[in-house]
């Protein structure tokens, strides 16, 4: 993009534009979910307790859905990173953060519509285990797994 050469330039992309992909898939997902089929959507999430508020992820990825929000911790004043609802779950933010061995605060959230009995059993077992170990997995619907 920065070449000084004049004339036609061609971009060869490795993957489809995520926004275009969303536009293509969203109606299909809505149709399937409406018909009672199992649909999995992915969102990324930043754990505000782990995020230190240095915003390296934002400097590295520049994703428009990656923003900041006030720190929930009364002892810390810097705003923490926050993934807003524009996230399409492409995973680039977590990938970048992980590749730079940077950030343990990113997590992937899989939102399952019309979960099967296997999904429910898996989640119940998982939540029970986490609670036993002193965690707070009391939420009945969402599963948070560490980003790849």
């Amino acid at each position, binding site marked *: 993009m920065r070449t000084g050469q004049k004339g036609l330039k061609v971009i060869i992309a490795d993957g489809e534009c995520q926004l275009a992909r969303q536009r293509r898939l969203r109606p299909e997902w809505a149709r399937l979910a409406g018909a009672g089929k199992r649909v999995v959507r992915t969102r990324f999430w930043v754990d505000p307790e782990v995020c230190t*508020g240095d*915003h390296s992820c934002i400097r590295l990825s520049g994703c428009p859905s*990656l923003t900041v929000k006030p720190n929930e911790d*009364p002892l810390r004043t810097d705003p923490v990173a926050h993934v807003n609802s524009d996230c399409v779950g492409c995973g680039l933010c977590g990938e970048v953060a992980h590749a730079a061995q940077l950030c343990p605060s990113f997590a992937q959230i899989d939102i399952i519509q019309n979960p099967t009995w296997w999904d429910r059993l898996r989640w119940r077992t998982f939540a029970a285990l986490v609670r036993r170990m002193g*965690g707070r997995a009391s939420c009945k619907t969402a599963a948070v797994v560490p980003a790849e």
Partner: protein
Amino acid sequence: MGESRPIKLLLAALGGEGGHVLASWLHDAAIASGHYAQGTFIPGVAQRTGATTYYLEIVPGAAVRHTTGQRRPVLALNAAPGEVDVMVASELLEATRAIQAGFVTPERTTLIASCARVFTVDEKSTMTDGRLDPTGLREVARSCAQRLIIADYTAVAAKAESLPNAVLLGALAGAGVLPIAFDDYRNAIRRHGKSVDVNLRGFEAGLATVTAPSVGETPRPEPAGPELVTGGSQAGLRTEAALTPFPAEAHAVLASAVARLSDYQDAAYARLYLERVGAFVSRCGSDGAFIRELARYLAFAHERRGRDPRSPAQTARRAA
């Protein structure tokens, strides 16, 4: 020329916010209301790295010239500084950018602005807190517009489970600056035929912010700082009594630090922390603000140290 002066409206939005749809509704509603309208849409996918703008000129009562062979009004393709009657901005910094460009003037411009913020890349990527002070931005808007209608339309939209562009259309209708009937706006939304119910819900919510000002005109209270843990005894340590020697400014921070360290290890460890902070009180140059910041940093230093040799520590488990 013997025809009424065109009403000039400029709309600024961020890529992906539906500014194009909003401008199309307006264009459609203006014509349906019997006016001649011309729009110049400069869309984009800019998402906070640039702006998208939509410029409309509306000649009241001249709709017939859209269809008949009569001479069409000669209208401008872009806004000229100082010549905008209505400025709509979907975000607070966009509003101030429009002001900087001269599109908002105290003589004639009604500014309808959302005070919601979408942070710029510079604000977000600063190591610490790079966010701009919104009170300054609001003050600029207040001083430069002839009439200012401001509310957090993004929050209104979220509450109505709709989208900000429909809410802005409602606010614009409610402001009464355009000679367009409410039903013409509603019909424009219906004619577009996409997510009609959601958009109509947003339109009514936006309308209510202006016509029933108790809902929307009052600015959303700035998000209060996170709740500080105060009061009571924390794991056997009487916090209030223990805090009296410290300056009042530092009390809130000290109380949450004590709660945190008691949770992390035990009351003795929290007491050790208070002793260490206490060593700085009433020293030369250590005022309240200094003690507050010292208390904040020292609380973290204590938490990172792990088991302190001087404290009969138990391994702590974060309580649920």
